[in-house]
């Protein structure tokens, strides 16, 4: 259940802050792949939480 709360927090935070993280299309000094790297990190975090949940439920 604590894992679920963390996930809710993550999704809500992502919903509110994503416009800031995903800005800078074509802007000089901003790597074009930055949004995808952030997205990839979020997926890795979700994967980690999922593994943790599996361990919790064992």
């Amino acid at each position: 259940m604590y894992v679920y709360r963390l996930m809710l927090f993550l999704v809500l935070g992502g919903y509110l802050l994503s416009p800031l993280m995903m800005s800078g299309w074509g802007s000089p000094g901003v790597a074009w792949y930055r949004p995808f790297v952030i997205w990839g990190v979020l997926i890795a975090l979700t994967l980690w939480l999922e593994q943790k949940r599996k361990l919790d439920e064992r």
Partner: protein
Amino acid sequence: MSASLVTMLGVGAGFLLLLLLCALAVERGLVPTRVTRHPLVTTLALGVYASAWAIYGSLELAATAGYGYLTYYLGVAGAFLLAPVLLVPIQRMVRTHQLASLADLFAFRYRSRWVGSLVTLISLLAVLPLLALQVQTMGNAIYLMTGAASPASLALAFCLLLALFDMLFVGRRRIDGRHDSLLAVLALSSLIKLAAMLGLGAFALFAVFDGPASVQAWLEGPGQAHQASVVQTDPAHWRSLLLLFFAGLMMPHIFHLVFTETRSRHTLLQASWALPLFLLLMALPVPLILWAGQALEAEAPLGVAYLAFGLSDSLALQALAFLAGLAATGATTLLIALALSRMLVNHVFLVAHPPEAQQDLYRWLQWLRRGLVLAVVLGGWLFYRVVGLNHDLTSLGLAAFVGMAQCLPGLLALLYWPGANRKGMVAGLVAGVLVWLAGLWLPLLTGLPALVLLPPGLEVLAGEPDWYVVTLVSLATNALVFIVVSLATPTSEGERAAAEACSVDAVIRPKRLPLEAANGEEFKARLARALGESVASREVDRALDDLGLSPLEGRPYALRRLRDRLQANLSGLMGPSVAQDIVDRYLPYRQGGPGATEDIHFVESRLEAYRSRLTGLARELDGLRRYHRRTLARLPVGLCAFGEDGELLMWNDALARLSGIEGASVIGSRRDGLPAPWGELLGRVLESEAPQLYKQPVTLAGTTRYLSLHQAELAGEEDEPGGRVILVEDHSEMKWLEDELVHAARLASIGQLAAGVAHEIGNPITGISSLAQNLRYDTDDPEVLQTAEQIQQLTDRVSRIVSSLVGFAHGGRHLPDRPLDRVLLAEVVDEAIHLIHLARSGDDIRFDNRCPAEAGVEGDAQRLLQVMVNLLSNARDASRAGDGVTIEARVEGDGVRLDVIDQGSGIDEGVRDRLFEPFTTTKPPGEGTGLGLPLVYTIIAEHHGRLDVASPPPGHAHGTRISVWLPRHQKEGETPR
């Protein structure tokens, strides 16, 4: 324009043929199940979300809104991130009640068939622009590749091809179940489109640019001019788009795939990270293709959406762009047609024309769905023909998603607000949909400007894009009306129950009501009136199989479970509204009985299943409940509990051992439905006003046992269920001990009486004997002498009888300090025969004492006499008139073995193992106490001997041989008794 029309149609047909072959291979088992059912296949199938919008529409959106195009992917990825708290509860509900669509779910929760019809209608209206988007992109793609004919005609040809494939697919699918082949086909499509998109991205990155750094350099140099037209997405717009695409989960095809086809909770949780990864890979090539096209100044005659076709003149690259679109549109159209046709059948056709005893219902439903699949695909083409030609992909796509988002308040309330009711939901939904229709849908159709009435205070939205204003106003209106109307209007009982069933963390608390149908066969007969005989029989058999019940099962609890299962299965076939109507009408609950109470046993079994999901206080309370439950179950005294309606709710382990009846087979039965003698016995105590009944004789497994029953009222407080609890104690041993005590007391009285009688009779007899003796001395008359001798013999006999009676009466008690003497078996047997004859019975039985005169054992003569009397009495009772009973003895080892052999009826096999237990008797009631052989066993054990029974004896067809082995007397020269 480098490919011929025939080539392109060939590619299209080839692709669909590949999908069909894939479906066939899965159905025929050519692909191993571990592959087809792997969570990865489901995740890839879920990639069907990436429709033609992801291939072409994203390019269009990226060109105008920059990274705003990512909201299409991130919105649904967010929904999957919330899988444990959003998707898994819905999946559980959908599985439990066999719901297959959003309309099913709404109809189930808000308890109205019209709600299902309304949601179906809204889904149809919302999906049409999305279908038109698919059709438009395919028509345009073929046109770009071939330049032949008009895009609209090409789109029609493509639609007809797709419809044919879909109808073939419907023909192969089981009408009511999930199917591996569908998942496999969708997964293959997703793989193809992902590979094609990655191929296009790789071409852009490495063939047009020189890697990531080159892209960065171009963006910061010549690319700056191209990016000037991009309007960075406003944060508010961004969040609205995220919300809209989050609601994309409710699109009919996505809902069907996520909740109906996904195999397990585990698969869904795995998709929470795997699907976002898939979408990331799909989204990554989009800006690269766009920038490559801009860098190459590629031509895009039909708009920037189709820029990929301009990256190169190479047929292979164009085919890649076409294939990506084909795979996306093919899979999306297939699934939309399947899901929507099912919704239309269940919530429009079957609601309007319920299938009354339809001959071959399955076939009828299949043809209906085929027709609807064709209608849906052609409806998509028609919408494109009327509307889609004049609108870009973004407008079409957003119109669809804003429409579907109107169901979002209803869905969230379904999970998290039990107070929501049908009136509120329908009012909110209609209000929101009207705003959507007026603001987006009708302007699409008519070309008129959007009609949105801004409520006071929201004038600030005046200059914003139509989709944004309509989204905000429609959803706000929808939610507000929903809340206000729900709070202001009453909620029906049925809705309240459904709300509890749907709420997260809620355990379903069904009511316990008796059904009119008494068993599975009656279920079939009643349902046949609605479904026809063969379908009714098949459905009932299937439900019985699912539950592992027999067709003759008559327990009310089991019948309620059967009814629920049938309703769930029929819901999968025909939707929840029709299923509920059929079940309510043909399998009704009995009216006029006692009020409904909660089905505690069912609630408990659900709690057991949910245990791993309970946390915090709920888990602690459940631990406490389990502890109390275990205490009752393992109580060493029999315990059962009845509900107020007379239904058995508990049957603990001790009672199961005593009765030989497992709790699982009787819980949920009515009292009068319990196996004999329990129904009658428990009825006796339930109907009695006394709190207990002592030592009730009951025959269990052929033996008489004495049970004491104590009952207590479970008085329900307020809303707590009441009933009765009964304790069942086995007092058989106590009864045996009491009887033995009485027996011993009686023997003691007889002993005292006999001693008195012996004394009183002894004196006159001695006198008579003396007088007879004197008479012999006083006369020489031979006749008188003979009379005197006879008098003496007879008085001797009277003395012997009296002395035997005294001896037998005193022999009933064991005296531990009494010394063991040498006992001659032949004499004991003679005396036992003599005593039996005294009882004036057994005169017609021949007793043959073949014991050698010298066969002596060590023992208590009186107690061994008791053994012989019991054994010979049993032999006499088992024999027929004229039969013989033989008594033999021989030395065996250190002892003497004595056999009592009769030619009687023998001993039943069922009784043989318990022969030496108290109260085990084969004699008719009233003739045997069942205490004789246990007494024999005890006496022989005290003599360190053993007993053996053979019935019939070896070499005989009938009869019984009881063998007694006793230690031989070892001392020489001792005086016999």
